[in-house]
């Protein structure tokens, strides 16, 4: 589709019907051919100069008999449909001069109804005998029009959430997409937290997991409190030996800091001989930097 046509259509009719009509322009172009032949519309030809080749191809497919039939059947209505299909202002105005029931039609009916009826009319002008076929065609054309409106509304959500795909049966409006993305982020974080807290992997349910996390944090905080109490007692008891230590000898010589940091009896991977030297280095480095 060409954007200028869409713009013209939306300007002229000021309702969504013109947009959807512009979406199904091949039929409209065919109708334009009909309207062109009937009205001899110079303005239309001028306006749709980019489509002249297509219009001629369409006009070749349409016989003279169908044109006369169309004009006889719906009077100026066929021409009006052609004008609306092309999305032209000039033709529309001329048609309104001749008869004004089309303008009423545009103003009162909604988009789908208009599409269906216009497509039916066009089909009637193209193949006048078969009513069933025209109905089927009308349905399909209205279906495509609906798809067009959906596609026009889809690019609305912001680009941050474009990676979120809606599965079958899920809502697709921007609020639901944003909410779904937020929920996914939160559940991801909850998984990380579950890995952190021991014994939390078996718990099912967000509330229970949160309870477990809260309990764990509280127990850790209580442990810190308890340890600080004990440390205070030990520290006051060991008042003298620590005071006698000069401040600069606090680092590896005074205490075995690697033992403090990583535990002496705990069977961990830190206690391996290859890593302990590196850790010693690290401890010394950090102390140098800090002092």
């Amino acid at each position: 589709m060409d954007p200028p046509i869409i713009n013209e259509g939306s300007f002229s009719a000021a309702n969504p019907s013109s947009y959807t009509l512009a979406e199904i322009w091949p039929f409209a172009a065919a109708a334009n051919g009909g309207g062109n032949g009937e009205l001899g519309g110079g303005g239309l030809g001028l306006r749709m100069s980019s489509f002249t080749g297509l219009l001629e191809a369409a006009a070749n497919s349409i016989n003279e008999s169908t044109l006369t039939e169309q004009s006889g059947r719906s009077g100026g209505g066929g021409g009006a449909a052609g004008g609306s299909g092309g999305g032209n202002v000039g033709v529309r105005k001329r048609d309104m001069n001749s008869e004004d029931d089309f303008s009423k039609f545009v103003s009162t009916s909604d988009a789908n109804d208009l599409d269906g009826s216009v497509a039916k009319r066009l089909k009637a002008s193209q193949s006048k005998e078969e009513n069933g076929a025209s109905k089927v065609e009308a349905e399909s054309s209205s279906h495509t029009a609906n798809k067009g409106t959906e596609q026009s509304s889809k690019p609305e959500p912001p680009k941050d959430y474009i990676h979120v795909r809606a599965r079958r049966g899920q809502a697709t409006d921007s609020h639901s997409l944003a909410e779904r993305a937020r929920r996914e982020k939160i559940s991801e974080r909850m998984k990380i937290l579950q890995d952190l807290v021991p014994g939390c992997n078996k718990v099912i349910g967000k509330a229970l997991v949160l309870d477990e996390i809260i309990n764990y944090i509280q127990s850790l905080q209580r442990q810190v409190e308890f340890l600080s109490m004990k440390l205070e007692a030990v520290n006051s008891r060991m008042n003298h030996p620590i005071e006698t230590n000069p401040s600069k000898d606090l680092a590896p010589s005074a205490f075995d800091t690697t033992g403090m940091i990583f535990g002496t009896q705990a069977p961990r991977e830190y206690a391996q001989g290859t890593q302990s030297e590196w850790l010693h280095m690290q401890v010394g480095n950090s102390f140098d930097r800090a002092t």
Partner: protein
Amino acid sequence: MTTRSSIIRTRFAYRFLRSLRKLNQKEKTNSRRVKYAAYVSMASVVGSKRVWSRAVLSKIRNRSLNPNLVKKKKKKRRSSEESGFGELRKIVPGGQVMNFYNLLDETADYINCLTSQVQVMKNILNLLST
């Protein structure tokens, strides 16, 4: 991850021992001071990147300066507390002003730091008591 936690452990041990020695030189020491020393050294090791460490630091510093102000603030915040995750917000320092996603993030970091803190403190206690 292991390197980061080991760095945090070493720095925390250093700061905590230094503050313990400072506390030793004072006449009056109680367990609350030791606890504050542990929290402050942990928070200052983590730095101002994390919300919880900033909250811990400001809380303890303000409490030492002006305890009445902190109490008033606490009462105000408690009134505007959510029902579901209010408990977690209360426990994690600085959690009252975060959105939920950041709260979970901060909680993960806080748990990491607390576990390493507890481990280091245990080891220090073992070494000092023996």
